[in-house]
């Protein structure tokens, strides 16, 4: 394989896809925890924050990498997509700002202000989740601001928000125990339909937006080869639903299952979308080959990425290992 104008765009589209997927899973549970704030008591909130405190910063960085690769590897697409999504992007950014700073302020501001920062944390998480879902919907519909498309985007906005709250609840099931864990199981039961609805809506809508995508899925033999994708998703949703009826178990077995299941669902959904839209980066308008930067610049980045990405993955694993197990309330102290 040579690194040139045909292979490099594919590699970078893959890297960008990986970053987006990691972001959606990792910051998905951070945002989900924020979305669950109104349902929890102040004491529970401290523990919920503790379960994501050491990770959220790095999790959010995957979004920076994803948008960075879009910016760097596909500059024309970057401009087209982001100017089309101008307002939802602004809502998301302000949401991410509120969410990120509320993390710090809620613990450091005077105690009477803590409730307000908790509200800001929820509001920020909600703004980020809904705007990301909205952008997903608009992207699927080809970035055209028509009434129908906006309606569809509002549907995906709601669905992704509930899906994030589901993976957030799944994370809390994994990282806590006792009353909070039991509560999280009931949150997850309430949230699983959002995951199903979101996956279903996007899966059903995409083939009808473009005949090209329709043919990719429903011509023979693709329809048979691809059948496992929706079937596995369906089976996983059923399994998750069954598991949530029995959790938490004695000895805390299977506490990992909802999170693993939610992650797998997101991966499956992501591959489905990737298959639908390839080779387009701006749906039906611009392919990854047309939008890519010059091969020389991409090679420079790729060399760095091959060195650095394994290191990033290495120390990310280190961090999750250091903070493995059930979350305890966080503290900066080192001597007691």
């Amino acid at each position: 394989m040579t690194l040139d104008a045909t292979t490099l765009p594919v590699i970078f589209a893959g890297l960008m896809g990986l970053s987006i997927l990691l972001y959606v899973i990792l910051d998905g549970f951070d945002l989900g925890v924020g979305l669950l704030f109104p349902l929890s008591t102040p004491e529970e909130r401290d523990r919920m924050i503790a379960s994501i405190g050491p990770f959220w910063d790095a999790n959010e960085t995957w979004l920076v990498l994803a948008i960075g690769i879009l910016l760097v590897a596909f500059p024309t697409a970057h401009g087209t997509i982001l100017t089309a999504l101008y307002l939802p992007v602004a809502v998301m950014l302000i949401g991410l700002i509120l969410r990120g700073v509320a993390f710090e302020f809620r613990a450091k501001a005077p105690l009477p202000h803590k409730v307000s920062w908790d509200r800001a944390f929820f509001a920020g998480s909600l703004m980020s989740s809904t705007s990301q879902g909205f952008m997903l919907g608009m992207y699927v519909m080809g970035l055209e601001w028509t009434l129908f498309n906006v309606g569809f985007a509002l549907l995906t906005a709601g669905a992704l928000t509930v899906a994030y709250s589901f993976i957030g609840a799944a994370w809390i099931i994994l990282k806590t125990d006792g009353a909070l864990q039991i509560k999280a199981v009931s949150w997850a039961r309430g949230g699983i339909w959002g995951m199903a609805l979101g996956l279903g809506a996007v899966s059903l809508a995409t083939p009808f937006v473009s005949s090209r995508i329709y043919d990719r899925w429903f011509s023979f033999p693709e329809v048979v080869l691809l059948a496992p994708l929706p079937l596995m998703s369906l089976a996983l949703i059923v399994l998750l639903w069954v598991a949530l009826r029995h959790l938490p178990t004695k000895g805390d077995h299977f506490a990992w299952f909802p999170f693993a299941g939610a992650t797998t669902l997101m991966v499956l959904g992501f591959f489905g979308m990737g298959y639908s839209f390839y080779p387009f980066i701006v749906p039906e308008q611009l392919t990854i080959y047309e939008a890519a930067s010059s091969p020389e610049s991409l090679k420079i980045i790729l060399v760095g990425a091959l060195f650095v990405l394994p290191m990033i993955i290495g120390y990310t694993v280190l961090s999750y290992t250091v903070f493995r197990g059930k979350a305890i309330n966080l503290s900066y102290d080192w001597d007691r």
Partner: protein
Amino acid sequence: MDTFLLSRIQFAANISFHILFPTITIALGWVLLFFRYRFAVTKDTKWMDAYMFWVKVFALSFALGVVSGITMSFQFGTNWPGFMEAVGNVAGPLLAYEVMTAFFLEAVFLGIMLFGARRVPPWLHITATFLVAFGTTMSAFWILVLNSWMHTPQGYELRDGVVHATDWFAIIFNPSMPYRLGHMLLASGLTVAFLIAGIAAFRRLIGDRADSTLTQLRFGLTLGAVLIPAQIIMGDLHGLNTLGHQPAKVAAMEGNWDTGPNVPLVLFAIPDEDARTNHAEIAIPNGASLILKHSPDGVVPGLNDFVAEDGTVMHPPVAPVFWGFRVMVGTGMAMLALSWGGAFLMWRRGAGSLPRPFLFATTGMAFSGWLATLAGWYVTEIGRQPWLVTGVLTTEAAVGDVAAPMVMATLMAYLATYLALMIAYIGVIFHLAKRAAAGKRPTREEPRDAPIAVPAE
């Protein structure tokens, strides 16, 4: 107002808000490493107290820096798509290297640095602190490489209006990079020095008698006194570098209209771009020639050289550059006076008996680094106009096609958010200072060094 102007204001607002926090975290990371190291070596809890206090400020500043930085990365696409389309082949890899070598390093090890102290061995905690400090500095390095390249581009060729990289060594080590990087790192050091001194002085003023507070006051003033002369030298070198590569910027900084020898150093004036002259000028004869050319009859470039035959102005707007420069230098002089005055007083009377007016002044200067840094960035960035990338791309050519009311609406939302966060940030720092001081007053009954139960997160 049109989309172009609004987009510029929005970008200026975002990057001004953003730079405040890296300016603190870049140097504070190294200061924390120093505190952490001193505690490991001396086992004296005053260093741990200092670390514990400033690590909270670091975490807060870091969070604000991260979230406002994310805004920046999206702004390129939402408001300035022409930038990446024209120079993406150079800017892209530099930004990618920043994300890959700095952002993840900082973000991952910040978790261990903040919350891992009881979970990892001390050497790993110190290493994590080091890697966070190193990461913030790497981040500063890459972004200043890109910014410097926009001022003094080289190592590229233009094909069909698109920049293609030809020599990465030349791009990274472009002529203004070493000066800009040095100037910014020192600015960060000074900002942190005066912040630490200012907050410690505030704690002394409200009756905090802890050893640690005194150590912080001494540390901040000493660091300031050491760094300020270095910054003055570095600023001068940077100015001479700018004179060589961007003479129009220097002409605007000096408020000098006509090229010639024996140019005075203008201390005060009201530059008038329409009449192309200064009003109410107070100046030192030959001063600018002496500073810039080290000779009274040295020839200094004037703004009128940068007006095309048809009257098109190709130099930056004069007043903001002129004033920004004076605010920066003025703040620097105040820093010099305060830190050297403080060093003298500490030498004569000891840090424990600094006079109250001096402590008030030090508290007042707590955020002086921000003022100088912002003023300096305005000088250099407005001073680059009308270019976005000098000689390659004008700012106007890069702006995106977004409806003006939309830019206006988002601008208002950002400004409201930033204003609220600024108030909260400064308020919380003083709140933390009061809370830390509360346990350290000798009038209280509890022992002076009793640990205060403060939930960290």
